[in-house]
């Protein structure tokens, strides 16, 4: 058995407790961890062995539940998928996700995101209703692939923390929610695009996006929200032309 290499890890974690603090401050923890560990493992060790008052969210430890998003050295990351080996010899600065209010320590309030998800009507609005007894809607693999990438979003909100336009203009519906609208728009079973346009094509919708692209860079699920938003700008523009410049087009 080859022994595991160990790393000396220094974490600098943003702390805030509304019961006792008026401001946030950094706290430093030092510990030794196996080199293959992720930042979340280090936090778990801190919580179990050094400081039980440290708070953060996590569950799956396999980058699929979307709970553990944090700013790590200023970049939004899933802490269960951020490897200590990539930060060897440096202090790792851990902060709550940017652009969301801090509830406590690394725990932010995602209410705004949850509200926006709902607004884009992220569910099938069937083109034609059909009872279960008639079986499945046929969908070819090509039709599936058309939207599949956009259905992979784990709602981790890293893209919101990455997008400066969301930070500057919080009313922006934002990358993940808009991408979800696009996902349903592209689904061959769906007929709800027109309804969703009422949100997508507003100022707060795709038009707030200036194609910074930081959302796609941050996305751990390779959803590429920036591309979805660009595509929706094009379709929304075509809609506008049809509605305003073609006689009878706004029917």
């Amino acid at each position, binding site marked *: 058995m080859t022994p595991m290499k160990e790393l000396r890890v220094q974490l600098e974690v943003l702390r805030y407790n509304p019961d006792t603090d008026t401001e946030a401050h950094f706290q430093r923890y030092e510990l030794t961890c196996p080199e293959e560990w992720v930042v979340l493992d280090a936090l778990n060790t801190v919580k179990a062995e050094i400081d039980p008052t440290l708070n953060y969210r996590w569950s799956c430890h396999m980058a699929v539940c979307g709970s553990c998003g944090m700013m790590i050295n200023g970049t939004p990351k899933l802490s269960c998928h951020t490897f200590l080996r990539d930060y060897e010899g440096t202090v790792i600065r851990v902060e709550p996700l940017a652009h969301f209010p801090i509830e406590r320590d690394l725990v932010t309030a995602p209410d705004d995101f949850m509200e926006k998800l709902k607004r884009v009507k992220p569910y099938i609005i069937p083109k034609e209703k059909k009872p279960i007894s008639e079986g499945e809607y046929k969908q070819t693999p090509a039709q599936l692939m058309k939207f599949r990438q956009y259905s992979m979003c784990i709602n981790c909100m890293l893209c919101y923390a990455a997008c400066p336009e969301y930070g500057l203009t919080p009313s922006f519906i934002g990358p993940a929610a808009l991408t979800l609208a696009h996902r349903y728009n592209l689904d061959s079973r769906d007929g709800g695009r027109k309804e969703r346009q009422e949100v997508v094509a507003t100022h707060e919708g795709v038009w707030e996006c200036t194609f910074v692209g930081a959302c796609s860079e941050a996305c751990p699920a390779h959803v590429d929200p920036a591309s979805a938003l660009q595509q929706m700008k094009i379709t929304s*523009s075509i*809609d506008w032309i049809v509605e305003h410049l073609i006689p009878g087009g706004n029917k």
Partner: protein
Amino acid sequence: MAKSHKPVVWFPFAAGGTVIAFFIPVIVVLTFMAALGHVPPGLSYDRMHAFAGSSLGKLVIFGVVALSLWSSAHRLRCTCFDFGLRADTLVATVLYIMAIAGSLLSAVYLLQI
């Protein structure tokens, strides 16, 4: 929330972005040669005049200039916002008027040729 009229400005922005990407670099090279003192033969008065005199030439020149101007103006508007200039309506009005003015002027000049 009403739907936005952003497409009016965004569509020409996107078209302009493509035009800039494909045409501006090479045009810059041409005038750059002039700046270096080697005016390319195609930039001579006669040939330029002939080109701008044809209706296709007029259309091409106008298209490139107007779309590039528009695209730059729109992008500049967003950049102003990004730099923290929050008077967006004012900025937009000024920049778009300038772009339109530039386009109109080039149209007028072209028609004079």
